[in-house]
């Protein structure tokens, strides 16, 4: 880790005033400290935003939707009564990430903005495409945990479990700068390699993520989230799915199905969503939707297993969201 100077920001304006090429922002510090220790980042100045007041609250309810401060910890999201009851996919995504210790430290904003876990990206020995090099080493290297969709340029999987749930729930992020505030739909916030090779989202250099906004779900809508790792705890997902199923009478009026650990951004399974619309949710329709969700996958040499895995995880998550046993 390099030596750096330290600034405590206590307000949003102070934090924004510190943004710039010489500064790296730190909230919970989990991903930032990893990156500093791995030598991926070596900023002259570390700006501590954990001390910014008022960004650690969860506001709202099932009827109004949620406004989640970026400094809310994953542990707090996991047990918050409203999130747990009405936004199950979000609570479960937070509650299954990493370990209890890390969830006590890691923040919602940091989870969305963390850098990818691709081992070529994380290793200072590989000057990969994402770091300005000319090769994506995962294309022909060790790629068992890499993307099965959208992987032709860079095969990272997006590392944020909250991001997967947030896209499924139709959520947004609020970004503030000295120019003002803007709200960006999560689905448009995360950027694929073709749009931004050296970063994973549309956060501008002078912007601070100041809130995560989740719209209310319809009265007949239910969400669910499933994570599968190689171990039951303390592991990154090899497949995760967040789904929302909304019904009108006996039929599904709207389904939202998003795959995480599948692509460089949270991956919406549009064909599967279309297939379910207007039909009842049964074991058969869930199976058909799951098959549609993996159509067009382009697995690499060592991650073909993920295609089958995702088919099963999509099916299970849909049945879970729809309350079909």
């Amino acid at each position, binding site marked *: 880790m390099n030596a750096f*100077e330290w600034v405590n920001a206590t307000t949003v*304006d102070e934090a924004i005033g510190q943004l710039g090429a010489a500064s790296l922002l730190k909230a919970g510090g989990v991903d930032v*400290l990893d990156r500093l220790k791995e030598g991926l980042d070596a900023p002259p100045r570390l700006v501590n935003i954990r001390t910014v007041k008022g960004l650690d609250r969860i506001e709202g309810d099932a009827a109004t939707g949620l406004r989640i401060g970026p400094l809310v910890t994953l542990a707090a999201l996991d047990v918050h009564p409203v999130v747990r009851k009405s936004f199950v996919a979000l609570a479960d995504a937070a509650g299954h990430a990493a370990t209890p210790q890390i969830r006590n430290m890691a923040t919602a904003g940091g989870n969305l903005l963390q850098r990818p876990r691709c081992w070529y990206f994380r290793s200072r020995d590989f000057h990969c495409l994402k770091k300005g090099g000319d090769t994506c080493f995962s294309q022909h290297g060790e790629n068992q945990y890499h993307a099965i969709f959208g992987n032709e340029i860079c095969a990272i999987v997006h590392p944020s479990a909250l991001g997967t749930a947030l896209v499924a729930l139709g959520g947004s992020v609020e970004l503030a700068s000295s120019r003002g505030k803007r709200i960006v739909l999560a689905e448009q916030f995360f950027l694929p390699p073709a749009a931004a090779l050296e970063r994973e989202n549309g956060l501008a250099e002078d912007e601070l993520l100041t809130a995560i906004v989740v719209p209310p779900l319809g009265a007949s809508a239910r969400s669910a989230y499933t994570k599968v790792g190689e171990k039951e705890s303390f592991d990154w997902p090899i497949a995760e799915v967040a789904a929302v199923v909304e019904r009108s009478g006996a039929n599904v009026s709207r389904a939202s199905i998003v795959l995480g650990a599948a692509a460089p951004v949270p991956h919406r399974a549009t064909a599967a969503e279309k297939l379910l619309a207007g039909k009842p949710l049964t074991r058969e329709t869930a199976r058909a939707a799951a098959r549609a969700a993996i159509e067009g996958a382009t697995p690499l040499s060592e991650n073909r297993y993920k295609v089958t895995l995702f088919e099963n995880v999509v099916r299970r998550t849909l049945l879970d969201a729809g309350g079909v046993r």
Partner: protein
Amino acid sequence: MSAPVPLTHITRARNGRPAKRRAQFTVNGEPVDVLFAPHKTLLEVLREDLNLTGTKHGCELGECGACAVLVDGEPVLACLVLGLDAEGRDVTTVEGMADGPALHPIQEAFAQYGAAQCGYCTPSFMLTAQVLLEKNPSPSRDEIREALSSSICRCTGYVKIYEAVELAAARMRGEEADILEEAIYGR
């Protein structure tokens, strides 16, 4: 417009090195006032500046759990917390578990069960178990496993650790409980 950060908040570099910073917080109930470089982790500050070497260096990346301490009563990984982030907070290390010469019931149970072999991971397991038992005096085996899932032990295979936590839990609930006969090594 963004307000400028007051100058007092900024560490000025001297001779190319950022200056040391002062932090005040409590460790095991006692106030401490320490001067250290801003890039030092809480783990380094505890071990090197406060001579509390019960907290262990492990992977340094949040993967092994050996460095767990309690900050404001919650277990966190001291290798991923910067020392300056402890400002104003309450830190508890394994040195704070015993009450004078009397071991904490969790320490007592770990010793009886041989739940520590090389002992390197033991402080993290005991501190994390302490928080679990404060919140949940009668945890199931699965709840214990989940709460302790951050820490890796390469010696014990975990069974003795879980049994020790269960024994300590029973004693802390006021029950008469003793180590299982079949768990005693060599019988």
